[in-house]
């Protein structure tokens, strides 16, 4: 379960801004703190996407390098470090999946653009909160099997709706309905938890 690392990391959750500031100052200890805070979440997410331990390790390393090299563009006064770091991790893993399956060209620009640090400005989402994690899991469990599948294909395999339709051999309209209804259900269940 993720609860222990969440609980452990929650102790430090308030320090993301200070951590980001230290990362920008190239404080080596900040990198160690970043790993201790988000390394586990990052590895679990990447492993879920690539389903390969060795590849997941490589991608975790790449993700930290990317964060280290791009942190100067992150506005620590406004930005949410955790969501940004996890988005970078997800995108590295999706990128890897695409390169393996020959889908590399598709959505490459969008993926690159979607983890730009500036997009995480004014996003106050506190990731390391075990209560919210439980609510999210409960909300996900309420979805229908098809809704769960399209959500997983989107988040953990990086498939567009057209690609899902092809993969699931379903009309695009049906896929869009499942995606819309699933996201709507999640939004409604989580309510103010994801308010920004």
């Amino acid at each position, binding site marked *: 379960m993720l609860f222990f690392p969440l609980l452990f990391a929650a102790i430090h959750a308030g320090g993301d801004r200070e951590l980001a500031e230290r990362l920008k100052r190239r404080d080596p200890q900040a990198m160690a703190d970043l790993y201790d805070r988000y390394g586990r979440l990052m590895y679990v997410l990447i492993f879920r996407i690539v389903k390969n331990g060795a590849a997941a390790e490589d991608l975790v390393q790449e993700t930290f390098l990317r964060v280290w090299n791009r942190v100067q563009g992150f506005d620590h006064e406004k930005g949410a470090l955790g969501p940004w770091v996890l988005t970078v991790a997800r995108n590295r893993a999706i990128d890897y999946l695409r390169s393996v399956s020959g889908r590399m060209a598709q959505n490459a620009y*969008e993926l690159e653009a979607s983890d730009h640090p500036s997009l995480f400005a004014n996003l106050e989402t506190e990731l390391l909160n075990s209560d919210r994690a439980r609510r*999210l899991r409960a909300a996900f469990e309420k979805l229908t099997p098809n809704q769960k599948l399209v959500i997983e294909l989107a988040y953990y395999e990086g498939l567009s709706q057209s690609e899902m339709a092809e993969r699931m051999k379903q009309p695009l309209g049906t896929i869009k309905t499942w*995606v819309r209804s699933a996201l709507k259900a*999640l939004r409604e269940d989580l309510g103010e*938890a994801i308010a920004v």
Partner: protein
Amino acid sequence: MTCEELKDEYELYALGLSDDVERAELERHLQSGCPNCSAGVKRAFALNAWMMQLPADVAMPRNLRKRVLGSVGIETKSWGSIFAWAAVVAGLLATVFWLGVQDRQRAAGLAEARQQLQNSQAELSQVRQALAMLNEPETRQVVFGAGKPQPPRGRVFVNAKRGVLLFASNLPQPPSGKTYELWVIPKSGAPAPAGLFQSDAAGNALYLSRAPVDLQQTGAVAVTLEPAAGSPGPTSTPVIVAPVAE
């Protein structure tokens, strides 16, 4: 497209998964500063961040932390290496301590040998002076204790220039805090102190007092037991009295 039509696209857009038409339309809204779409995309980033925590936990590779930090040039110290360094430091400290003890023992042995050498040289010097004194014809010899039932016995040699030489045997072992003191006793007047000495374990003593002696005025040479620091005048009954007057 309206904001209402685009609201189901926010999460996919934030994931980089929008289809071309919807993406272009949503970007047009965002570039125009549409408050609904801006807020909606922001919420989508938040939801996506939450969704990324959904996967079940898995075991972490043991060396990943070291590898990640190493890739950005940060060295980590494992407990193993810390213990190894501690062992090395402890070993070095033990070696330094052992060398220190050895050094102190060597220094003590050296000092003892040096002291023994100094003692031997002093004894040799005394013997040479005694021989020189004995070789001079004007040295006068006095035997004491001969024929008496109790020791000590011995000889005293007196030389006006070279002083007084005492050979004694069967001297009783001085009590703790006491030592022997030699006296030159004039024919008239108070005894003059002529030096402190100890007997060896067998009760033998050889002592040379190099202060010149006025043979015309000297009546006797005596030895008493005195406190370890000596006395300005005899405080006990003499154990040796050797008359030297002509």
